[in-house]
């Protein structure tokens, strides 16, 4: 087994050497949206042709790699500084795990192969009044014949303007308790009444979008799971953010992220050296936590707070590390005004990565929410009034 893994590692390494565009970071710095999408789709196709784009999917749909192999794959991609799959992230993780867990055969046949051909998905969960308190969402869907008519507003739909399809939560029973009246839909973004407006974020990008839904008709066949059972279905979507996605991010932070920090630092300064060693310790701990979580998910032994512990630790470590990079970088670090869009949060621009790190501590359950989950589900402490 170990020998097989060593062979696999060598194969991935050789593939990386041949296929990762040598100058992609420079070439992707400050590019327009069109070029970002072109590059991301081309890189996805390249990874897919090697069998590396959706290794976590079941074999029948084009995946089937063992977890141990996936760990090796993400380690090697990170070590060789491969571009990150930013655009397809929701498609290959959230959309796929939802369809696999709760979709119909028809829905899977319609979408899983399409995703491999480049179909892009966006998540339509949050709303202006439903952020941390997602279950209070107000977008409504009412059944009319063979369709649902949907109206409302979604927020923080990452990649919304490039999306072909949307994972949508809407309220189908306004009288039921909050979580019991929500249904889960697959929405074709070309449906009349769907309007996408980009929101500029703190670092000047506009990949977050608002999605306005004005009497949008969704065929009843696009309901996922039972009517009013959307909250349970959504758990499989959110579950996709756990495990290997975090392992990939931790590996990337431990490779390019830490390597550049070391390069940027005056190592003869004992205070700086001490701080670097501290970061190395923490990254090593994080990588271990991620591997344990992946194994736990596989063996069914993961604890109820494991995902929250990893998400909280990764996001806050990322914030502290980029903050330190920004401080050490001094004034010259402030003159880097653009970063390679396909890099993620180890772009080489400390300031942009630092400000961008709030994209990890706020969405997907803020740090405050994660701490509450860890204390309540992990430690069994009494619950806060009216908090999930």
């Amino acid at each position, binding site marked *: 087994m170990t020998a097989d893994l060593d062979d696999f590692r060598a194969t991935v390494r050789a593939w990386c050497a041949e296929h990762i565009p040598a100058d992609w970071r420079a070439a992707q710095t400050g590019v327009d949206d069109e070029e970002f999408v072109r590059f991301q789709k081309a890189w996805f196709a390249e990874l897919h042709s090697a069998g590396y784009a959706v290794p976590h999917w079941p074999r029948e749909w084009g995946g089937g790699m063992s977890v141990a192999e996936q760990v090796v794959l993400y380690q090697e991609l990170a070590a060789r500084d491969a571009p990150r799959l930013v655009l397809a992230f929701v498609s290959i993780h959230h959309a796929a795990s939802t369809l696999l867990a709760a979709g119909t055969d028809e829905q899977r046949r319609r979408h899983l192969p399409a995703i491999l051909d480049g179909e892009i998905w966006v998540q339509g969960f949050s709303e202006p009044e439903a952020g*941390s308190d997602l279950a*209070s969402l107000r977008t409504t869907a009412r059944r009319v014949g063979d369709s649902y008519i949907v109206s409302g507003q979604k927020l923080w739909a990452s990649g919304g303007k490039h999306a072909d399809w949307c994972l949508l939560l809407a309220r189908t029973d306004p009288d039921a308790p909050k979580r019991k009246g929500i249904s889960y839909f697959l929405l074709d973004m070309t449906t009349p009444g769907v309007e996408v407006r980009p929101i500029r974020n703190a*670092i000047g990008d506009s990949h977050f979008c608002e999605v306005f839904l004005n009497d949008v008709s969704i065929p009843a066949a696009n309901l996922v799971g039972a009517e009013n059972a959307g909250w349970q279905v959504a758990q499989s979507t959110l579950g996709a953010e756990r495990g290997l996605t975090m392992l990939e991010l931790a590996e990337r932070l431990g490779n390019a992220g830490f390597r550049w920090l070391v390069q940027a630092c005056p190592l003869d300064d004992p205070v700086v050296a001490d701080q670097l060693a501290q970061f190395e310790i923490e990254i090593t701990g994080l990588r271990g936590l991620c591997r344990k979580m992946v194994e736990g998910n596989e063996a069914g032994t993961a604890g109820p707070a494991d995902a929250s512990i990893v998400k909280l630790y990764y996001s806050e470590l990322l914030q502290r590390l980029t903050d330190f990079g920004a401080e050490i970088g001094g004034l010259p670090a402030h003159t880097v005004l653009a970063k390679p869009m396909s890099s993620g949060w180890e772009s080489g621009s400390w300031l942009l990565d630092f400000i961008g790190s709030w994209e990890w501590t706020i969405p997907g359950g803020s740090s405050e929410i994660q701490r509450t989950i860890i204390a309540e589900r992990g430690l069994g402490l009494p619950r806060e009034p*009216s908090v999930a």
Partner: protein
Amino acid sequence: MAHEFDEFHDELRSVAGDLLAKDRNVDWPTLVDAGWVGLEVPEQFGGAGVTFAEVAVICEEMGRAASANSYLGSAVLAIGALKALQPSGTRDQLLADMASGAVRVAVALEPFEFVPDAEGADRILVVADGGVAEPAVTVTPQPVLDETRRLATVTADSEASEVLRFEGDPGVAVRRLHERAAVAVACDSLGLSEAMLAATVAYAKVRSQFGRPIGSFQAVKHACADMLVSISVSRQLVSAAVEAVAEDRPDAGVAVAMAKSHACSAAVDVAGKAMQLHGGIGYTWESGIHVYLKRAALNRSLFGSPADHRRQLAQRYL
């Protein structure tokens, strides 16, 4: 003893707050007309003849508003540099011209790669050994992520014909100029921290999730409390540093290093916490929190990093 000016400071603060709240970009004539440029210029040259303590009040308000203007480079540093010179016709005329708004001067002191407000200045004085000179210079803008500041690289193209000499020990004069710059930036960070705390507290009272204002959750409440504690310490350290610089105390450098290191580090944490507690809205461009976070991060690196200032303090233990 400083308390006799409390009322004056309150009034200055309130007027400045109102004026700066109107528009993020404030042009030079507005700063001159408000009387802020000439605050430290002696009355005989058309100024108000007050001290750095009053300038510090304005610096704090600049931070609170995250105001984009040339006050730091062209008032705080320029007037400070001129006042440190031996009286001369050239110097006196410059002081009078600055108080009247006839010219905008920028002062280049190290690091010359990042000189505030040099771009578009009418005249640029370069701090050199023993004094201040006005050589022909090339000014190359250095755009930074913080869009509220204008920094530029200043390179001298020729030798200056005349050097205006500092009064007293030139080494001390240059050091004091750096201290003045550092404490001005610390004031800015203090003001912006207070603005971020105020905005966060206001938001936590009105934003509701789970059927109650988010400010009623201890996670939010405690974070706001921590911001206040940290800012309270900043205010003590900054006030002490302002007083030391205003009174030209020989050991002002200690108070300045403490204030610059603490207030500028704390401001990054406070602005970051503000972004966090505003949730998704805080991460939007439109909310403007990022403006404060970027300014806080730039302030931290301007005129000595926290580590630089701490290193300086630690020298005294040897």
